[in-house]
């Protein structure tokens, strides 16, 4: 059951991370908080699963990371969107809108 949920989230998780980072650079915990807040707790992801996604996105060159001092004066790893990441975000948003639009149409017609 948990696995199914993770699969479902996988596709949207990248989009959520990119969208969150589009607002400015943020560390992992901050991203997790932000996603939980903005989705009003609906998409309550397993926080740990955020990190493999971050590493994958960095590997793909869509986000980059650097160490910086956090708001409570501790070292934290901050992620930010790269130029290719911005392009990717625009693309994924367009894809998502097309998909959700289609699903909406299907749901309305029935």
């Amino acid at each position, binding site marked *: 059951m948990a696995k199914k949920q993770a699969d479902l989230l996988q596709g949207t998780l990248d989009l959520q991370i990119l969208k969150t980072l589009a607002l400015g650079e943020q*560390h992992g915990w901050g991203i997790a908080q932000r996603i939980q807040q903005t989705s009003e707790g609906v998409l309550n992801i*397993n926080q*740990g699963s955020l*990190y493999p996604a971050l*590493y994958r996105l960095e590997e793909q060159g869509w986000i980059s990371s650097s160490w910086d001092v956090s708001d*409570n004066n501790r*070292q934290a790893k901050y992620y930010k969107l790269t130029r290719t990441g911005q392009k990717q975000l625009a693309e994924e948003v367009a894809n998502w809108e097309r998909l959700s639009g289609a699903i909406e149409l299907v749901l309305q017609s029935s």
Partner: protein
Amino acid sequence: MLKRAMRKLRALLFRARLECEMEREMQFHLERETEENLRRGMSLAEARRAARMSFGGVEGVKEECRDMQRPRPLETLWQDVRFGARMLRKNPGFSLLAVVTLALGIGANTAIFSVVYGVLLRPLPYQDGHQLVVLQQYSAQSGANSLGFSVKEIRDYREQTQTLAEVTEHHSMTFTLFGGAEPELIQTGVVSANYFEMMGVKPLLGRTFLPEDETHGADAVLVLSYDYWQRSHRGDPHVTGRRFRMNDRPHTVIGVLPPVPQYPNENDVYMPTVACPTRSSEAFQSNRNGRMMSVFGRLKSGGELAQAQADLSVIADNMRQQHADAYPAQQRFHTSVTSLHDELTQRAQKTFLILLGTAGLVLLIACANVANLALARVMRREHEMAVRTQIEPQHLIRQLRSAVYEFDLDTAIDQVRTLEDTGREAMASPRLTATLLNLFALLALVITAAGIAGVMALAAAQRRHEIGVRLALGARRDAGAGHAARIEAGLARFVIGRGRRVGHDARRIVVAVCGRAD
């Protein structure tokens, strides 16, 4: 793109640092989450537990992260290299055998290539050595051997040539020399006055011949070879000016040659053409068929061998038409010109190329042999490999972790490691010592192998000059191959430790290696 490559490189080189960063990053997350939970009014223990719950298994997340960032092909290559190094370290016998086998193959190749380069590929060690040529005259009767040239022929070529700057002649005779402790039979080279100058040989003492020495009625003069000077005059520095009797007339010593091997053969003394009774006799000089002399020339600067060949052919054709009686048609006389370098190396060439080919084969066999040994080792480990590739320890960890989670979610299982890892840690210190020792041993081995190859190359290089000179001025024209074979035999003795002839030894290597390869 560059940044990505850099990151991959970093991932490879700074593994430990990345691990540490990953740990810190997740620790930071858990701390922040715990603080957040405390702020919501949980107790510390509760807050920690909740943070851990919402995060999931740290090790599992880490493992997934590693999967995401691992640069596979490079990493695999690096692992292979490390594995190879480890195997070599673990099996010094095998390593030694492999290194020695390859060192022999490479060493033999280097040595033979040095000789081939020195003799076949390098220019002659003379000023403008590439411009020296050899003239040869053949007939049906003479076959593959040069007939030699007569006085009249030499004069014709010398006077009519358009392409040769100089033409010089040489023949060798035995005369009796009086005036020393007792009469001596000496080998005498009879040459044109320009002979030594054209060949680029400078006298050690006194002077060589001048054009005046070759004029009719000039005082007879002698130039001594270095060996004869040492042997019969014990290197007397005042030998110039001494007079000896030869052919019933006084001969004055005017100079001594340096210790270079002589070409085309070894003589005790040299005299100009006019001093040789045979060469200067009226009958001999007027006889076009008195072919006895070797002829050499120097191309005009910028001249091509092909032009010289055409030029000399024209002269030879004219000669044959004008003196048809001296050149019977059925004897098919013809004249050729060869560069001295080619002429000297012609016979050696085949031998050298065969040697080079043999050495190449030896190297190939050495490689095949090492590959065979490696293969044999792999075969022995086949069972272990099968087990290893079937079960990946990392998978086991994941399975174990999920199994533990089934029982108790709160159990900290960050410390699951393979037995291998645990063992590795326990062995870390003694292993370091062993590694260092082995590293030095390997280094010593490599240096030794390089040293052997170097010494062999040096041995060949040191003799290269000598080979070149000897071939250029050598005693016999076919001495080059024999000499090369001798050098090669010396090298082979050095390489293999024993053996009399290189051909013999090369065969033995091949057989021995093949035998082992079976």
